[in-house]
Every structure is written in structure tokens, then in C-alpha cells.
């Protein structure tokens, strides 16, 4: 009887542990979703589109917030320094790929602009990416239902 009781106690303990693990998984997923899928944690409300062309792979993200602030990844940067930072990231990409310089500019640049900002601000970010000789630029959107 004592043996059976110990077994049930172990099951109860296991269930308790399982519940704790689920909670940790959930918290981890919630906290890391933005980092995992967007490469940045800058929060912007993206416009929606029916047509989807690019799945955002490992990319350089330039975010334009509602208050016209520019971020490269998570770093707040002035507009005229964006190209410098993007250039640096392109070279890092080249270094990661056995220093194959033909890959310079091939890493996808994603412009994540808030849907309410003016087009001029977005165009300025695209200009900066072009200035860094980025070859692949995409506008981030969320798929329309």
C-alpha cells in the first residue's frame, strides 16, 4: 500500500512538473516570438496585403515608427546613419559566408514601417538601404484575412 501511495505521489509530482514546463514554454514563446520571426522587437502596426511575395528569412530590419524614429534591428539610429549600419551588416553577412564578396548586398533588407507614417519617411529608409548597395529590399506586411 505504501508502495502504491508513493507511486501516485510521483505521478502527482510529475503532473506538477509538466504544468511548470508548459508555463515556461509558453512564457518563452511569447517573449521570443518577435525576435524569432522579425529579427527585432520594435513594435509597429504593419499594413495588410493580399499578395505575399517574400517570407522574411534572416534579414536586416529597418523599422519606421509612428513618431518617425528609425531603428536598425533594435537600435535607434538617426536617418543618415542607417546606410552605414546596413553596410556593416552586409559585410558581417559576407564574413559569415566564407568571405564571399559576391554575396554583398544579397541579405534581405526589410522595411517595417507603421501603416500610418507618410510615404516620404519610408522612401527615405529605402534610399538609405539603396545607398548601402542593398540588392533585395522588401516592405513588411501582414497577410490580409
Amino acid at each position, binding site marked *: *500500500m505504501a508502495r*502504491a*501511495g*508513493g507511486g*501516485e*505521489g510521483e*505521478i*502527482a509530482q510529475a*503532473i*506538477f512538473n*509538466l*504544468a511548470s514546463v*508548459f*508555463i515556461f*514554454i*509558453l512564457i518563452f*514563446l*511569447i517573449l521570443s*516570438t518577435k525576435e524569432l*520571426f*522579425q529579427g527585432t522587437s520594435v513594435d509597429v502596426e*504593419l*499594413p495588410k*496585403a*493580399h*499578395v*505575399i*511575395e*517574400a*517570407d*522574411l528569412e534572416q534579414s536586416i530590419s529597418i523599422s519606421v515608427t509612428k513618431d518617425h524614429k528609425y531603428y536598425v534591428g533594435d537600435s535607434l539610429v538617426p536617418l543618415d546613419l542607417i546606410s552605414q549600419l546596413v553596410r556593416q551588416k552586409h559585410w558581417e553577412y559576407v564574413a559569415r559566408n566564407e568571405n564571399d564578396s559576391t554575396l554583398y*548586398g*544579397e541579405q*534581405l533588407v*526589410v*522595411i*517595417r514601417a*507603421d*501603416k*500610418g*507614417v*507618410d*510615404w*516620404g*519617411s*519610408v*522612401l527615405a529608409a*529605402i*534610399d538609405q538601404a*539603396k545607398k548601402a548597395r*542593398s*540588392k*533585395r*529590399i*522588401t*516592405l*513588411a*506586411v*501582414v*497577410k490580409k484575412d
Partner: protein
Amino acid sequence: MSIFFKKKRGEGGEMEAELPAAGLISLTDVNASLVKIFVLTIPLAIESGLFVSRSVATRIRRPIVQKQVKKDVKVSIHIRADGVIELNKKPVTREQLEDLVPKLLARSIEKNALLSADPEVVYEDVVAMIDFLKQQGAGDVLILKRKSRTKKGG
């Protein structure tokens, strides 16, 4: 521990075993459901992209000569700050646009479209236009930078 486990009293009155409280089991179920819902809704929250510039490597399947592109472009759209949409330099309504764009694209080989907008135009409207052009079958939407043509002060 008493919050999570309930001791069961045996027939002889002695404490027999610790069983998980009903609350704990439902907590496990709720957690499992939350994880499942979260995992299933991730694809809905994932961001995607609309290309405004592609590398040569992605265009290599259909090489294009610059002069041909200029001649071949049949759709050139400009969105003015006052909301007016110009198709090939002529103001058009949304209905006319929906009617004309597919016809013009059908006459084009590369099916490229040019798009420009005044800097004051809301970004969402520009994305909506790119989306519209892609839906109508445009291959590449080429973004042009133009100076604002709206007159200041009325």
C-alpha cells in the same frame, strides 16, 4: 504542497496517498491548450514582404534589357497628396483604375508597373496600391521617387 495535492483517507482512517488536486489537472489542461493555440496562431502573426527591389539572381529567369523595360511599361501610377490617383498622367477614379489596369497590363510583355507617390501620402495607401497592382497581375512594381506636384497654399 497541500494546495496541489490532496491526501486520501483510507478505510482504516490512515492517510493513503497524495493525489493531484482537480485544480492542478485543469491547470495542466489549460496550459497545454494555451501552448497549442499559441503555436497554431503563429503563422497568422508572421510578417511577410512585398519586394520593392530584387537582386539579379532572383530575376535571372527572365533577363531584361533596360530600353525594353521603358517601352514595355504600360502602367504608370502616381498617388497625389490630395488623394487623386493618376494613371499614365491622367486622373482616374478607383473604378476606372480597376477597369483599365488589367487591360493595360495584358498589353505588356513584362507586366511591370511604375508607382510613385507624393511624400505626404500615407504609407498604407501606397502598400494598398502595390497590393492592388500585384493582384491585377503586375510582375514587378517599380518604385519611383518624384517631387511633390501639389501646389502649396491651395
